[in-house]
């Protein structure tokens, strides 16, 4: 241990570096919050301040008046919840099989996961647009959910494979020796151990769908159907001239659900991502 003790100047340097990182990471976010709570006169001032002199909630009220934020949040919630649930239900069995059996299927599944990370979505969105149009699912949340499910499958699969591998195969073998059938082993031994991983994966899929913009932009045409990220861009206006206060207020609100999920799941998400990603 003692060999690694850091000298005093080095320590000070480390703290200065850490401080610089903290400032870089925090300042845009703090500025967003500051802008969201500033009254109009302060926003128009040529010398903006960090802390609002007369903090107000007027921007939030105005944001809800200007754009259908509640309905957009509702659409986002439905799309993200449905996509997360379906993705996990569909991906868990596949993840189980690919994690436990090494063979052509596992190779194909991992290969597909890697390749799907490289798609420029424009190549997929045009055909999807045409297919969904023929099915009359353009400008509909169910159509978007279908796209989200497939889009979040690779990552869900990746994370879940990591969680399955973390369940010792010996446990299943022991159950098998005790005479439990295959299904019984899966349901009463493996599944309970996988639950935390499944929940983490579902929440991650929820956040990615909640944050998603490109597919929603292309597939949802009318404001009643649009999700929160798409509606947020309406605040920017045609010429990019924006009402800063309501814009900041709405943007801040749109971030809260993902922030909460990440705060709760910080470790699990990082761990799950790495379980797969770092091979």
């Amino acid at each position: 241990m003692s060999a690694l003790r850091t000298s005093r100047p080095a320590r000070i340097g480390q703290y200065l570096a850490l401080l610089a990182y903290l400032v870089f990471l925090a300042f845009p976010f703090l500025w967003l919050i500051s802008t969201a709570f500033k009254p109009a006169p302060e926003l128009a001032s040529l010398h903006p301040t960090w802390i609002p002199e007369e903090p107000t909630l007027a921007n939030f009220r105005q944001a809800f008046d200007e754009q259908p934020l509640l309905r957009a949040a509702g659409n986002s919630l439905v799309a993200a919840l449905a996509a997360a649930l379906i993705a996990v239900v569909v991906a868990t069995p596949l993840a189980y099989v690919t994690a436990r059996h090494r063979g052509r299927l596992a190779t194909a599944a991992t290969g597909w996961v890697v390749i799907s990370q490289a798609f420029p979505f424009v190549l997929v969105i045009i055909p999807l647009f045409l297919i969904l149009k023929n099915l009359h699912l353009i400008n509909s949340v169910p159509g978007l959910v279908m796209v989200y499910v497939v889009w979040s499958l690779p990552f869900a699969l990746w994370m879940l494979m990591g969680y399955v591998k973390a369940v010792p195969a010996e446990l299943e073998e022991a159950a098998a020796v005790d005479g439990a059938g295959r299904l019984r082993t899966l349901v009463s031994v493996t599944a309970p151990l996988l639950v935390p991983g499944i929940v983490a994966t579902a929440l991650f899929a929820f956040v990615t769908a909640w944050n998603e913009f490109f597919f929603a932009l292309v597939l949802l045409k009318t404001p009643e159907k649009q999700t929160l990220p798409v509606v947020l861009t309406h605040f920017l206006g045609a010429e990019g001239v924006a009402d800063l206060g309501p814009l900041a207020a709405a943007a801040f609100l749109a971030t809260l659900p993902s922030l909460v999920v990440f705060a709760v799941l910080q470790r699990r998400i990082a761990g799950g991502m790495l379980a797969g990603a770092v091979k």
Partner: protein
Amino acid sequence: MSSATATKRPGGTRTPRTVRPARPRGPDFGAWFLVLPALLPILVLSVGPLLYGIALAFTDAQSGRTQSTRWVGTLNFQDLLHDTLFWDSFRIGLVWAVGVTVPQFLLALGLALLLNQKLRFRWLARALAIVPWAMPEVVVGIMWRLVYNPDAGILNETLRDLGLGQGHDWLSGLATALPAVIVVGVWAGMPQTTVALLAGLQNTPRELHEAAALDGAGAWRRFRTVTWPALRPVALAITALNLIWNFNSFALVYVLTNGGPGGRTRLPMLFAYEEAFRYGQFGYAAAMGCVMVAAVSVLIALSLVRRLKGDQDR
């Protein structure tokens, strides 16, 4: 991976007789039953559209008249070859991808090394590092527009306070737009890279560090001989992925500049999106997608070759 092989091995070497009774007799329908629910949507909604998209690149499909679409061979690709606007955007995409990925990696490496030390307030940095990751890209774009705002933004106000000029419209300036969006890209993608590198660091054995330190190796030498070799696979993987993701990115720049000013930040995805959904040129946009896939495939191939070579060296 390592834990998986470790747990698998005992089962494989044990005498088969103790394990076998549980195996189902006959063909393994169970596995297929488990695989099908995922395989079906993947084939129908992912692999299918991908092939369909490649096929579209060889047609004159337009959004208005998909009925009378004709096969036009490589015409779209020939047009693309002469489309200077597309190659401009391709070049901008490369500059953006490298310009974001490299500083992002260096900054993330520094942060990961710091967070791996026993420092006070480390928890705060860890918590903060998650924020950009959790934010919707659209919000990140909006947030940085507030920072960059020529009059009401904090960046110009800080510069004015420091006596550095009267302020500048960063996102509208021909020279500053691309650097300005690159800064945002670096900020937005740092968390993933940091988390990946941090995990890589935590896999490096501490004893090796201590042994090297006892042998009198300085910090830089320890990094080069102990830390980096252990970190290299993770670093290469995350860098390759970041290059690909950044080259294909869309939402951030769409919100920040929508490709402007004068196309200076028009990434390939923005270009293809406009071509497809503003001008309705589905076939042509699909051809752009194909060229982008080809470019990315080269990158994947290169990194795979490196990995294979690395395996041989070992």
